[in-house]
């Protein structure tokens, strides 16, 4: 279903043209909320070749607004490059000449897996607000079922940034025997009050849009575009560092002088509005609510009286954690909490703090130190692939 692994060359290349796959799961998925998801679909992509021992699979978990489309492009869609194409491909840090890489769209998202836009088999109508709230743990359970279906008993590694990093951590806790390495980037063991506050402002923007209709806007042929756009603008501010914004926009105006009005006069306003509008064209508002809630709820220590060391006691994977110095959304100190808890458990862990200027978004961007580190770590996974611990 994915592009065949091309002959090795030295220069990093794209995996080329890819086609997503779709799997239907009839057995209901029991959710943390107590609800369950009746039959559901998972949309996914794979790159590279699964080896004979089925030991070289790497699962890439996506964050808020991304999907199963990690790398490559779709035929006849020139601007369809995957969200982590700079990380995954032949000769890239996660090298598809050696690894079988899996991207999967999480249930509740809006890129092909069952979510609020899907038809609820019980009513024949889109789920809308009736779609159950899902958690990071629920996603990991769904991902494990996809691995079962693909015949993969144990993943060489699970990797993700931000919310994707939370899923990688959760894999290490929920399925300790099924994951060799956990690579968690720009993440946190739980959201702070400030993180939750930003999410709540974003949700409130969506919910107060007159086109939201309590989440059941599909039947009315409208979408809460303005609310979703504002939600994205708020989110986007938290992805960038203040320094980076100053560097990129400063106080630059779009015309010569102040217009003494309230339009998008500053470059930064124009940029944010453009980002918001673009996002509202392709993202679903109910999914935004659901995924920000999954972020809020993630707190593996909660079941252990707030003790992260106890929460990670079950983990058996080896860990690489990476943070970025200018990330104030999930600051390095948050990752250090995870590192300290892993050390207290005596786990193998390495931690790098990359001095990149781009804030939280740095995990998606090219940075030589960051990419060399990930490449080196995956080299060592490849060298030891299949080894039992």
């Amino acid at each position, binding site marked *: 279903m994915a592009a065949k692994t091309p002959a090795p060359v030295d220069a990093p290349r794209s995996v080329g043209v890819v086609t997503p796959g779709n799997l239907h799961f009839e057995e209901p998925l029991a959710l943390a909320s107590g609800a369950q998801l009746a039959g559901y679909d998972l949309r996914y992509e794979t790159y590279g070749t699964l080896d004979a021992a089925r030991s070289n699979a790497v699962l890439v978990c996506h964050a808020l607004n991304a999907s199963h489309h990690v790398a490559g492009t779709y035929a006849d869609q020139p601007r369809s490059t995957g969200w982590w194409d700079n990380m995954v491909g032949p000769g890239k840090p996660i090298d598809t000449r050696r690894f079988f890489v899996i991207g999967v769209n999480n249930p509740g998202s809006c890129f092909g897996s069952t979510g609020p836009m899907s038809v609820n088999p019980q009513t024949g109508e889109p789920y809308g607000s009736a779609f159950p709230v899902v958690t990071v743990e629920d996603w990991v359970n769904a991902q494990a079922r996809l691995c079962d279906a693909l015949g993969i008993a144990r993943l060489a590694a699970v990797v993700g940034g931000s919310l994707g990093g939370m899923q990688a951590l959760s894999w290490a806790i929920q399925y300790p025997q099924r994951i060799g390495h956990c690579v968690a980037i720009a993440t946190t063991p739980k959201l702070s009050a400030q993180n939750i506050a930003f999410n709540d402002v974003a949700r409130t923007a969506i919910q107060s849009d007159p086109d939201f209709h309590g989440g059941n806007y599909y039947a009315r042929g409208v979408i809460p575009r303005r609310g979703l756009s504002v939600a994205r603008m708020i989110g986007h501010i938290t992805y960038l560092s203040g320094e980076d914004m100053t560097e990129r926009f400063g106080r630059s105006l779009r015309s010569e002088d102040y217009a003494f009005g309230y339009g998008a006069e500053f470059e930064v306003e124009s940029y944010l509005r453009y980002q918001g509008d673009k996002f509202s064209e392709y993202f679903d508002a109910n999914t935004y609510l659901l995924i920000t809630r999954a972020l809020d709820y993630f707190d593996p220590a909660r079941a252990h009286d707030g003790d992260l060391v106890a929460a990670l006691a079950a983990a058996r994977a080896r860990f690489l954690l990476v943070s970025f110095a200018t990330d104030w959304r999930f600051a390095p100190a948050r990752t250090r909490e995870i590192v300290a808890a892993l050390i207290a458990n005596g786990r193998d862990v*390495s*931690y790098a*703090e990359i001095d990149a200027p781009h804030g939280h978004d740095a995990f998606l961007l090219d940075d030589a*130190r960051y990419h060399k580190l990930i490449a080196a770590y995956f080299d060592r996974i490849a060298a030891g692939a299949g080894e039992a611990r």
Partner: protein
Amino acid sequence: MLRQDLVQIASWIDREVPILDLGCGDGALLAYLRDSHRCTGYGIEIDDASVLACVRAEVNVIQADLESGLRMFADGMFDTVVLSQTLQAMHNVEAVLREMVRVGRRGIVSFPNFGHWSHAVSLLGGHMPVTPDIPYQWYDTPNIHLCTPRDFELLAARLGLRITDRALLARGRPVSWLENLRATVAIYRFEKR
């Protein structure tokens, strides 16, 4: 080839014990102890290139400065905490030595001997010493707290550290006479009294 002071340090470390290496560089000591002594452990290192080298060597490395890095570790987590060729560059030498015996049962430090006879010759000639072990000019040196073996022993006594082993080396070999003048590197193993 393991650096000579690291060979001496490794000889003082038991098999299969947890080790913390402060300023672990490329992870050479930890990789050696893992392979030859089956030791587990972590290194703390601030430099990007060194962190990358540790990852390549499959050594657990935590990128942090020593002060904030040490806070991650609970009391008595390690058998031995190593600080090789770094003591002289620490801002707060006393605090680091105290932290070493907090997180470990024992500490090992190595440092260049500022009391080497050739340094006196340099000073008599009117210049700060520049040698293979202290290869910096006075204006760009990271070495802000150079000392002699006797100086270190006095500090250790003041901090309540009991020195259990001492090695004074020149060109990687033990020095047996006039060692305070002839050694280029001093290595001490100590524990809390």
